[in-house]
């Protein structure tokens, strides 16, 4: 049997396929088809199946990562939705957080809500903060709201009632009545989608879910139909933002869980590779054409956040306070994303200083050297001028790079205004981009209390391995790992991703008043639900495991830290240890703890994991002698004082056990690995490059 994975990105759709018996991996890359992503999906799937000589019936399952959910929101391609909330709070979405998206722009616009005000309706009911009923639900008011929504011909409805995270009974009743009154219209309840307090964040999450539900549902249906036409009738699994997969039917009900599907795949790929090789603590570094993304994996688990907005931008120096975008409060793999990619534009500002980004030349027109009409020098152009990228072997020679064009653009637009020579300017562009990425690595590690020197850097994406060695050097990370086919690494990671369900219940209790019995019962109930869901998707019970966590804070704080629990029943002993663990975690994260202060539990979380069988990595043949470069060319390294005559290796000719000394460049179809002087590369038994200081 084989497994098939499809990862749709902005420019390319990547396919990977693994043979479960032999462990052999195939890859394919086709252009994405933004007008109908399922077209690119199928052409990638069909190409890889035919190249591998496989039949549709051989496919055990298909895993898919996609930006379709995010794009629907950003492009406004959303369903005609309705919003139902508690009487008095019709304008929750209109008011949002009452902030402006930019501090000094007097011409700012507030992002319009996904549901306009004429489709925002209220029902008569009210709960208090403990779930007590202050006003009983008036069924008649729900039927009236339904009538209005029917008149508006809505395709989807979001319901978010105050304090429904404590007691969902009113929301569930509203859902029942709406289902009766609006047959065929999907209803999303906030108590299902994101049962957490803070009404605007919960409402926004629920509205996003409702607004993209029809679009995502149709998309998944069309893919399943096309797959079936191609003879693939096995299950379609979709990557969630939190880093597990779920069935396409679950995805169609809860599409908000897949908004960051694509970026999550890369981090999971790094975690899975680390698991196979015995690395538990990893910083993942994914650099493409427009941005670089870094993620943190600690003890095998990617760090996850719930502070996220779709379509947001953050202001520099604002501490990541997302002032714009639609907030999402479901778990998302924690990524620091910065506008430094191969296409980031280098420019000289009005103060006479060299800047890189945040603007990107993107795929169109792209860097100057792509010869597609780009005139502004980019990071990729600088790498070409420095000899790091091979002008005749970029993307395997598909694009012949214009070195002279890149050089004169840097000369005119950067070097001359700064009074530098063109090589100094090109090197400066790379150094500035690298420094921004080092800051991002610091932000995700040091700022959260981790020391990057304790982590392994895993670099991928087309541009990642070009820059990674310099980043490892500047952050003093001892080990850098470049996987095989780094350009399609995210898609490869999909092949070994576990099924996952995240569930949580708000349980606000002071720790000294915590009844371990109650916590254990809550955890057990969440586990039973999670296991039943995965079993329905065909996951055998003996492959299901649980991760238990509590969200905790000091009484009076309003952000929580998530503390993992031990396996085994939650009892008094665990409850007592929990407090020490919380103080320690607070100290690690924020640099202080307050052992004399009371702490409280805020919510109980269970992640149910259905473990997908891992396939052993395919071993590469061992080298039988010296590894010879395919050619030599001048490559610039500032630490060597300029250009050096540098050996260039063909990655596909490398065998296990080979050792290369920097300076060196290793080229393959989808990426280029730059090895700085003073570093050595060992090829591991599976073909991964392990780079360390010599």
């Amino acid at each position, binding site marked *: 049997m084989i497994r098939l994975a499809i990862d749709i990105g902005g420019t390319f759709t990547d396919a990977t396929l693994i043979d479960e018996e032999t462990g052999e991996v195939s890859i394919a890359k086709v252009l994405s088809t933004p007008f109908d992503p399922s077209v690119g999906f199928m052409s990638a799937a069909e190409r890889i199946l035919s190249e591998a000589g496989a039949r549709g019936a051989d496919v055990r399952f298909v895993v898919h990562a996609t930006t379709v959910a995010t794009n629907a929101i950003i492009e406004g391609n959303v369903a005609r939705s309705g919003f139902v909330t508690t009487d*008095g*709070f019709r*304008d*929750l979405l*209109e*008011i949002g957080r*009452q*902030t*402006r998206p930019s*501090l*000094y*722009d*007097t*011409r700012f*616009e507030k992002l319009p809500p996904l549901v*306009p*005000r*004429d489709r925002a309706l209220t029902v008569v009911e009210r709960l*208090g*903060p403990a779930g007590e009923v202050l006003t009983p639900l008036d069924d008649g008011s729900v039927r009236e709201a339904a009538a209005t929504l029917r008149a508006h011909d809505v395709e989807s409805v979001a319901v978010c009632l*105050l304090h429904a995270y404590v007691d969902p009974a009113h929301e569930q009743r509203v859902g029942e009545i709406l289902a009766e009154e609006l047959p065929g219209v999907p209803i999303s309840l906030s108590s299902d989608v994101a049962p957490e*307090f*803070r*009404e605007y964040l919960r409402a926004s999450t629920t509205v996003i879910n409702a607004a993209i539900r029809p679009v995502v549902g149709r998309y998944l249906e069309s893919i399943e139909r096309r797959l079936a036409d191609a003879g693939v009738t096995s299950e379609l699994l979709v990557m969630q933002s939190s880093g597990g997969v779920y069935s396409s039917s679950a995805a169609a009900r809860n599409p908000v869980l897949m908004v960051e599907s694509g970026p999550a795949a890369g981090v999971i790929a790094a975690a899975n590779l680390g698991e196979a090789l015995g690395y538990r603590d990893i910083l993942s570094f994914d650099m493409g054409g427009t941005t670089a993304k870094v993620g943190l994996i600690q003890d095998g688990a990617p760090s996850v956040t719930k502070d996220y907005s779709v379509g947001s931008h953050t202001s520099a*120096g*604002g*501490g*990541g*306070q997302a002032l714009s975008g639609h907030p999402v409060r479901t778990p998302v793999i924690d990524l620091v994303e910065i506008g430094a990619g191969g296409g980031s534009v280098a420019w000289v*500002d*009005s*103060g*006479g*200083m*060299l*800047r*890189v980004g945040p603007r990107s030349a993107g795929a169109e027109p792209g860097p100057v050297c792509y010869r597609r009409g780009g005139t502004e020098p980019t990071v990729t152009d600088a790498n070409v001028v420095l000899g790091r990228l091979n002008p005749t072997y970029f993307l395997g020679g598909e694009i012949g790079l214009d070195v002279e064009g890149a050089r004169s653009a840097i000369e005119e637009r950067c070097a001359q205004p700064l*009074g*530098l020579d063109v090589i100094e300017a090109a*090197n*400066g562009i790379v*150094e*500035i981009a690298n*420094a*921004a990425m080092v*800051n991002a690595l610091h*932000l995700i590690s*040091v*700022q959260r209390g981790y020391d990057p020197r304790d982590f392994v850097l895993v670099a991928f994406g087309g541009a990642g391995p070009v820059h990674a060695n310099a980043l490892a050097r500047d952050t003093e990370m001892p080990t850098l790992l470049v996987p095989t086919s780094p350009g399609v690494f995210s898609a490869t990671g999909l092949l070994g991703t576990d099924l996952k369900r995240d569930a949580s219940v708000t349980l*606000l209790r002071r720790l000294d008043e915590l009844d371990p019995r109650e916590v254990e019962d809550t955890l057990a109930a969440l586990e039973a639900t999670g296991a039943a869901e995965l079993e329905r998707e065909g996951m055998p019970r003996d492959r299901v495991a649980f991760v238990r966590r509590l969200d905790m804070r*000091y009484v009076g*704080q*309003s952000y929580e830290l998530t503390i993992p629990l031990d396996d085994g029943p939650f009892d008094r002993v665990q409850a007592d240890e929990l407090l020490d663990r919380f103080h320690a975690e*607070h100290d690690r*994260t*924020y*640099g*202080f703890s*307050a052992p004399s*202060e009371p702490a409280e539990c805020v919510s109980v979380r269970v992640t149910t994991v259905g473990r997908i069988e891992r396939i052993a990595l395919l071993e590469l043949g061992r080298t039988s002698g010296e590894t010879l470069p395919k050619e030599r060319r001048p490559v610039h390294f500032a630490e060597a004082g300029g250009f050096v005559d540098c050996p260039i290796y063909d990655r596909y000719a490398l065998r296990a056990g080979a050792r290369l000394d920097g300076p060196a460049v290793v080229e393959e179809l989808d990426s280029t690995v730059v090895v700085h002087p003073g570093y050595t590369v060992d090829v591991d038994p599976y073909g991964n490059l392990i780079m360390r200081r010599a």
Partner: protein
Amino acid sequence: MSRTSIDPITFEVIRNAFVAATEEMVLSLRRSAYSTNIKTRADFSCAFFDADLRAVAQGFTQPVHLGSMVEQVPRAIRDYGPGNIGPGDVIVTNEPYPSGVHLNDITLVSPVHTDGEVVGYVANLAHHVDVGGGAPASIGAFREVFQEGVIIPPVKIVEGGAIVDDVFRLLLAQIRSKHETAGDLRAQVAANATGVRRLQALVARRGREAILATMAELLGYTERRARAELAALPRGTFEAEGQVDTDGYTDQPVRLRAKVTIGADGVTFDMAGCDPQRRAPVNSTYAQTFSACAYALKCLVDPDLPVNDGFYRLLRVDAPLGTVANCTWPAPVVGGWETQTRLVDVIFRALLPALPDRLPAGTKAMMCHAGFGGVDPVTGAYTCFLETFGGGYGGRAASDGPDAVQAHGQNTENAPVEETERGYPVRVDRLALVEDSDGPGRHRGGLGLRKDFAFDRPTTFTVLADRTKEGPWGALGGLPGARARFVLVRGGVERDLDPKSTVDLEAGDVVSFRTCGGGGYGPPGERDPERVLRDVLEGKVSAERARDVYRVAVDVDARAVDERATAALRGAP
């Protein structure tokens, strides 16, 4: 272009590291603070100064702190004596005179030592929900600064890395919400420690010389860019007047006046003509007025321009001593931000004729505080709540003023209803837009917002706001936005509260904040009928108002503009 000792590559790398360091401070403070005001509403800012106490980099969440920290931090250090501050020490202050702000804003400053020498200072300022004084949340119509809470001259709150317990306890003893304040102060200490560590690491990595050279060049670089921006602004002198509507005691509005001169060398803000200071919550300190001017100027230049001493060099603020734009001891300062934000509005009004495409009509331009508190009968703890509310933004040349947003230097988030109800003895009955509160115009002003707080026990409640007499002004033919109202509902009867007052609430009382709409831009009769239709269908503007003010007839059932009736209303041929 002048070149200095530092190469442009190293410069850019280190400059970004400075920004990253302040950003990390911001994150650290926001994530670990206790109070909703700091964590959720983000009412704080962080900054980094060179050894000569010139601002180098600032990490803002609240632009009002622009300018105020650059006044307060250098003075605090000079007063204490730089030589008396050692590694691991932290200075705390909130002293308003001669150059601070209101008492709720507590600033912590830490020196950054490397090899025994000071390379700079990091500081953060946070708005504490309570600092003692005459009413919960430390806001109210006070007569003197002594009624407003604990005054902290520059003293050490941390010495050699350890909290100075005597100072900490003395301070907390003055404060109602001790638990939150203690947590927030610890978070402020931790944020500075983060900043110190980052800068020390940067010096270790890049070398002291490169860091000092970058700091110096950064100021020159910023000044060069700021001057290039200045050259693009219209030269001339521009004047406007405005007012703070009430002072909490008299019927006399507080007159404000701003004369802005954009010249070859910089921009001068002359505040002569503002009323004398009062024994009422309407007095802005020099630091607050400076901050208003800095904010207004920052809005007119490239948003990418760094904010540091190089930018401030372009700015000159003349505010006569003893006026509401530069008050002297012992005048109360709690209402200073109300006056400060209105000064921005007056400055914009002065400049709008010269920059009609850039500036909005009158905006909310009040901080608009609600504060309440009381002793919990069960735990005996004193809880205090503070929130500020958005309102209508002014219409602009190309677009409507957004509804229900913060304006000018203020960008605090609202307090989530569910978080409020869980943490405080209050119920929020309503959170809504105020329909028909728009200032009519070709581009209408934004709507105000309404938030109703209901109490089931006696509670001390303070309103510190404005805009009850005059709505935000309309521009170029636009009309003013609706005025604000602050209403006490007792036994079903509504009574308007003075916008600067403290009331003792009874069980069952409701206080309803209804903030002002933004001013309109351009004549309302020129508004696109399709936009009027959209507003009517969404219930933001009534059909009657559409007809009477915008002169557009809407057929609500057909969800369409009645073209013929509209033509008749608008007197078209």
